[in-house]
């Protein structure tokens, strides 16, 4: 009896001590991001978002101070590198949470580590739909490609666009976007009059543009990796008078994202896209975010990747507040499921079933706002789930 009591007492004590112990020490977040090489801009923006959150909202949640450890997995497409870094973060740096992931391959490669090490994994950009299915400890705070593709397709079908010519870069994301667009657009009664997959590093879009011009579709659906290709295409589009001849240009919003829209220049005017974030989004949250960002990083403009980092960090913070600083995988994911908040991008929530993000997708048009090229939102699809999983 007494022995029992004492045993219980000791257990209680132990519990207190242990809990007290972990409440004290900081919580380590290991981030895997491309900081150099072709996708260096991704890593930069995501890091900005995360640090901005910690700078504005403080760095202690659920009684534990947050500590960031960032690893460069450049080129960002080499899964073996990302996986090794994740392993090091877990084994050597003893991190409690894995986060970041600029591109799909690194997320895919790291997911098994999260599962085996029982660490929560927060995806802040990588956008292939299937990622969340690769580990039960994985939650996504950014977006999925189909999620941003379907709305523009249905919008096009609704707004008198009958025939569409699709042009995508010939790699995983491009093919996914093409597939999703076709699915939604044809289901809504639209017709695909031509489709082209162009090499990722393609020096000249002339022939494709000419082909489009000769096919005379109502609109072109475009998916290219941000960078040289996009710019060359947009310029050619105006040069060859496709814009003038009334062929609309529709795409997902990463094409004219704030990082490169200035490099595209006025050629981007009139481009219609569907996306979850625009610097021009009208809401007090975003106004505050944009202001803070401009103050912290005057040389850059906030884009969807920075918001991915920002919201990812918000998710982690809220979860810690909820669990009182406990970051063990099961508890973390349970707390994350169904979580709702107002992000700079608008209202978002985590789908309890898929651990993927549910958010409002906006239809935007590129216009000059105060001499600055912006994606101005004029229509929206609220609380839109990733259709890629159906």
């Amino acid at each position: 009896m007494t022995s029992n009591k004492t045993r219980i007492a000791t257990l209680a004590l132990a519990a207190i001590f242990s809990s007290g112990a972990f409440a004290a020490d900081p919580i380590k977040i290991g981030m895997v991001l491309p900081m150099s090489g072709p996708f260096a801009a991704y890593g930069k923006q995501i890091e900005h978002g995360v640090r901005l959150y910690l700078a504005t909202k403080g760095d202690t949640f659920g009684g534990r101070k947050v500590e960031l450890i960032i690893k460069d997995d450049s080129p960002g497409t080499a899964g073996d590198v990302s996986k090794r870094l994740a392993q090091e973060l877990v084994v050597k740096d003893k991190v409690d949470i894995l986060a970041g992931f600029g591109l799909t391959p690194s997320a895919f490669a790291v997911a098994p580590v999260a599962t085996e090490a029982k660490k929560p994994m927060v995806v802040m950009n990588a956008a292939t739909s299937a990622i969340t299915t690769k580990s039960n400890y994985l939650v996504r705070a950014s977006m999925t490609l189909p999620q941003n593709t379907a709305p523009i397709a249905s919008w096009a079908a609704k707004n008198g666009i009958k025939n569409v010519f699709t042009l995508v870069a010939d790699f995983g994301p491009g093919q996914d976007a093409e597939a999703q667009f076709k699915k939604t657009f044809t289901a809504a009664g639209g017709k695909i009059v031509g489709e082209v997959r162009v090499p990722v590093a393609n020096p000249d879009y002339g022939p494709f543009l000419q082909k489009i011009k000769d096919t005379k579709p109502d609109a072109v659906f475009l998916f290219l990796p941000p960078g040289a290709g996009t710019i060359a295409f947009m310029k050619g589009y105006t040069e060859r008078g496709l814009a003038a001849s009334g062929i609309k240009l529709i795409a997902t919003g990463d094409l004219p994202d704030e990082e490169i829209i200035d490099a595209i220049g006025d050629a981007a005017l009139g481009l219609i896209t569907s996306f979850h974030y625009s610097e021009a989004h009208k809401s007090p949250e975003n106004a505050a975010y944009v202001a803070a960002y401009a103050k912290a990083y005057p040389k850059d403009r906030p884009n969807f990747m920075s918001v991915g980092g920002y919201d990812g960090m918000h998710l982690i913070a809220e979860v810690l507040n909820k669990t009182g600083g406990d970051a063990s995988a099961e508890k973390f994911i349970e707390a994350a499921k169904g979580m709702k908040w107002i992000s700079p991008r608008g209202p978002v929530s985590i789908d309890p079933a898929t651990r993927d993000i549910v958010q409002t997708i906006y239809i935007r048009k590129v216009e000059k706002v105060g001499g600055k090229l912006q994606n101005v939102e004029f229509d929206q699809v609220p609380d839109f789930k990733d259709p890629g999983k159906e």
Partner: protein
Amino acid sequence: MTANVAGPLREAARWKKAEFAFWLLPVAAYFVFPSDLALLSQIAITALFALSLDLILGYAGIVSLGHAAFFGTGAYAAGLLARAGYGDPLLGLAAAAGVAGALGFVTSLLVLRGADLTRLMVTLGVGLVLFEAANKLTAFTGGLDGLQGIEIKPLLGTFAFDMFGRTAYVYSVAVLFAVFWLARRIVHSPFGISLQGIRLNAARMPALGTPVNARLMAVYTLAAAIAGVAGGLLTQTTQFVSIDVLSFPRSAELLLILVLGGTGSLYGALIGAIVFMTAHHLLAGLNPQYWQFWLGLVLIFVVLFARDGLMGALRRLAARWASRFATRRRVA
């Protein structure tokens, strides 16, 4: 007569003390850096890859800008096999070696034509075509997203691949050593010597009755197979294949590693890999954006002023010590 005349020739093939010492390093590393095993096993794999390039470049004198083609082929071969349910590591390596070797044999027919410049471009071209193919055949390779869902069975049915990378490390180092030992025998054998003959004076060899092309095809195929094994190892230890294994930068980087370490001496490949990977790891940690800059400078310096790489430097150092030691003896 042979005994004393052949002496020095045999001596060359005999294992030196320094070599035994060298091979104690990986063993020591296992205990000294228990939490860096993931990195260490990738160093071992890179070393193996560099070794395969050294065989064709350092010994036979075949230049290549597309050696990643075989590395990648091996990686995908092992990966696809494992995904098809045949997850036994050794079986996977065998397959990787086989497929990559076959590819090596076929492409050797193209590569052996023409001089250095042509070879550089042909190897480059082959590499590019393979990359493009892997990128297009998403159904097989997963394209840019990479090949996942690879289940590797425990090594020898008992040692599972753990997250700390213990099994992976021991496995990689063991394979590296085995292949190194084989390569070491080869380069000291008549076959190996004739390869060096071809490198030193290709025009003379036929006049000695050497079927030059046959020899080169043989070694090219062998090197391809070894590169394939390295690729297979990477797949098995990371349980993932990204299209990056076929990329041009990988080939260029490998060339760089080998030259840094020193061509034509198997240890150059190993040391190059160790130094390069460690430097990359540290520099990338310090300032990710600009580590390439220093890399470039080092490369330029090596080519201009230290063409025999780290091995050369070590040799000179050893020589100096030896002489100093000798003089001290004399003084005493």
